[in-house]
């Protein structure tokens, strides 16, 4: 038994730490298809104090630590690339307080977005942005680390970090701090994300787990409007400019209570339809682009006005309504009504069934999304030979493209772009090279990735996306917080001593 293992047993008790080879193996990957590395230990801490003790010990022993939430990240963010300790945070999943008066909820960060919202729904509330598209398995801590969006409510509420009112964070050297209004010892109930001075909550939001381990989050909650409508339209013209026009006009004319808005390129719909069985039967013979919205309101009258305005904009941009029911092709009704608003993106990953997706998804301004899709076309042309080789060797079709394009707050869309490939170990190096090149091209086209994890954070450095001054600024902050670089080493090329 190693000294580290013995110390971990003392901190969390013998049942919540393991060095078992089989269990460790299951923590060696996340939802990306190619990166894998075994941890030496996996721990399930129950309290922030245990997390703090683990981090202090890790500093003494110079052992890397990687926090892991639902393990649903697509950028290998929770893969222990340098070995060491994986902190499985899912033991900490309590809802501590739902404060209706102050409209905030305090949770432990290992709770899933779905479990949290299930409880909020009972009281007529929700978190607005429901977190990432994998919110049935993804936890609050992971969503905040990635500034995620895609799990419903993106058009109205933007990404999930916007709704943070405060955090409890264990810093890499073991100090436990509260950000936001709770930084004051005299504040009893959290009410503001900003404490005295700078936005230190923001230091840990979208940080991809390098600045600290989030143990509690205080999130703003919103009244769930009682009136909802959703419509789906076929767009007669394939040109993406119609999708852009619709999104822009929806946004610039006031939003009309729009909760989610999704555009589906025609080739994506044809791809879904070519599956066995076709993924969405009413779209089987559509062969056109489609767009849908869901809108919420506090009165029937307001809802009717929203629908009228939203419809008018789609109709003048070649839209044809597909009918009111799910069976008619109204995917909006399914998404809002049946799937809990989490599974749409996620399910498109499993559509090909024999291949897996390596994703390059990112945000960009609405008007730029056709350009980003064009980047993927260029990438496909550039790598046609490699993709053909994989296809010929396996007999399995592989390819790249843009899936759904969803409104993601402000004037942004979230692009579900990437490529599907065969994940056999013999293709690992090729897949990584292809993935890195696609990321590189999308970064250089001016898109903004949010879920960075290990893969994109390093690619940003390789692509020289940061100025020297900015990168030094990032390095400086990391150095102050985590001088030994024990927390998530490797991301952004910040390494522990002894690693390259």
């Amino acid at each position: 038994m190693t000294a580290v293992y013995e110390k971990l047993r003392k901190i969390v008790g013998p049942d919540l730490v393991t060095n078992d080879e089989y269990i460790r193996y299951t923590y060696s990957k996340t939802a990306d298809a190619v990166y894998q590395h075994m941890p030496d230990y996996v721990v399930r801490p129950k309290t922030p104090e245990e997390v703090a003790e683990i981090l202090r010990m890790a500093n003494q022993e110079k052992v890397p630590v990687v926090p892991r939430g639902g393990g649903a990240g697509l950028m290998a963010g929770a893969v222990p690339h340098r070995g060491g300790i994986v902190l499985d945070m899912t033991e900490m999943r309590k809802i501590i307080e739902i404060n209706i008066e102050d409209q905030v909820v305090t949770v432990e960060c290992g709770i899933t977005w779905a479990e949290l919202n299930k409880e909020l729904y009972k009281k007529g509330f929700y978190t607005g942005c429901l977190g990432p598209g994998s919110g049935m398995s993804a936890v609050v801590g992971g969503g905040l680390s990635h500034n995620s969006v895609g799990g419903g409510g993106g058009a109205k509420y933007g990404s999930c970090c916007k709704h943070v009112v405060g955090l409890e964070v264990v810093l890499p050297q073991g100090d436990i701090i509260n950000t936001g209004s709770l930084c004051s010892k005299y504040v009893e109930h959290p009410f503001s994300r900003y404490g005295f001075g700078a936005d230190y909550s923001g230091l840990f939001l979208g940080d991809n787990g390098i600045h600290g381990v989030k143990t509690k989050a205080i999130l703003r909650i919103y009244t769930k409007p009682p009136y909802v409508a959703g419509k789906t339209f076929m767009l007669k013209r394939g040109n993406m400019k119609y999708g852009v026009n619709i999104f822009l006009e929806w946004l610039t004319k006031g939003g009309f209570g729009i909760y989610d808005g999704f555009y589906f390129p025609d080739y994506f719909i044809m791809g879904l339809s070519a599956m066995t069985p076709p993924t969405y039967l009413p779209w089987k013979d559509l062969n056109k682009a489609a767009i849908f919205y869901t809108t919420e309101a506090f009165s029937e009258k307001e809802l009717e006005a929203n629908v009228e305005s939203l419809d008018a904009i789609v109709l003048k941009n070649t839209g044809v309504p597909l009918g009111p029911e799910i069976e008619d092709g109204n995917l909006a009704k399914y998404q809002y009504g049946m799937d809990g608003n989490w599974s749409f993106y996620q399910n498109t990953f499993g559509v090909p069934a024999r291949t897996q997706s390596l994703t390059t998804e990112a945000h960009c301004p609405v008007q730029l999304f056709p350009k980003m899709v064009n980047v993927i076309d260029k990438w496909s042309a550039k790598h046609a030979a490699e993709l053909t080789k994989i296809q010929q060797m396996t007999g399995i079709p592989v390819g790249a493209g843009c899936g759904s394009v969803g409104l993601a707050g402000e004037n942004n869309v979230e692009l579900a772009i990437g490529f599907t490939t065969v994940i056999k170990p013999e293709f690992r190096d090729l897949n990584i090279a292809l993935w890195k090149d696609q990321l590189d091209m999308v970064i250089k086209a001016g898109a903004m990735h949010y879920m960075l994890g290990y893969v994109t954070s390093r690619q940003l450095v390789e692509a020289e996306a940061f100025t020297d001054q900015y990168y030094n600024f990032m390095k400086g902050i990391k150095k102050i917080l985590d001088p030994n670089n024990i927390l998530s080493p490797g991301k952004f090329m910040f390494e522990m001593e002894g690693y390259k």
Partner: protein
Amino acid sequence: MSEGKYSHLEKVRAMVEACYRCGDCRIAYRPAVGRYQVCPVREAVPAKWEPFFARGKIMLIMGLLYGDLQLSQELADIIYQCTICGSCKFICNYSYHPSLPHPLSQKMDHPKIWEALRAELVEAGFPLPKHAQMLAYCQENYNPYFEPHAERLKWIPKGKTFPKEADYVLFMGCTEPYRIPEILQNTIRILDIAKVNYTILAEEEWCCGSVALRTGDRKIAENMAKHNLEALKKTKATHLITHCAGCYRTLKFDYPDLLPEFNIQVLHITELIKDLIAEGALQLKKQISRKITYHDPCHLGRHAQIYEAPRYILNHIPGIDLVEMQRIKENAWCCGAGGGVKSGFPDLALQIAKTRIQEALDTGADAIVTACPFCLRNLQDAAKELEGDQTIEVLDLLDLLLQAL
């Protein structure tokens, strides 16, 4: 790489490689479709490591297929802590709507994957010792209950005889003749009232092979199946009926897989009774004023999609107030007994059953009714353990039915 090393896993390789580790099988909640959590084992074990739900197990299989891991007894101790309830199959890209037949959800068959892994463990010499003892006995005496084969027919009431040939064969199974004979006695009373032309295989009936299949010994299962098929042929029956949900799943889905010539129609007793009620052959006249809830056995529900027949029967009993638990049909919480867990990890089985009993208590029902002898016994054990604060009766569906006839 271990290309070709694992013949059973190779057959499910495409499914294993299709898993993209989203983790919905960990703890998904989808209130709109009645889904509250996924894996009964994960929720019951103290340390909820990844291998205690589907994603982790699939990772382990990938480790075997890619040569990173080896089979061992330690692995068996993890893998056998699964009831093979199939709940994970019904969250894996499962849309809950016929218009969205997601390709992956159509391809994935988690119980099949877990059974393939168990078959590898058994062939490599790593069965769970308790299962190995049970199956060794079963091979010699045709039941896993350590009972003499000759006592399989002890349940038959004095004077009751069965013809050599009939349209229907009632498959007894092992649990009922050796542990809950009343169920079989009730079954034949109902069949006699409805004047069904049936017989039994009597001493020619061997264990169906379910226990062997679920725990990974396909050879024993195949032997049992071959023998039972020969016995069945002699009766000239066109239909096979059984009350045991485990036998039903095996006869209906595994026998055609094991024995291509098996072409007899298999019915669960609830399917037949539903038809008998609809045709008027069974008249439910007596009032039973009870508030009850129904537990979907996994082998009947998720494994065979029989959700409506038992509810049809219950709803036709005068006076019965059927209230549903929070998790039903494809979302039903397993009783905890299946997949060899009751014999291999009895405390785990009991822990899971207690959760289900609590869920039944939450409905305000005074009885939880089921249609599987295995569920019945495990839920009864849990109800006894919980006695004190609140009580609930655990009943077989036919018990209630007979009271109404």
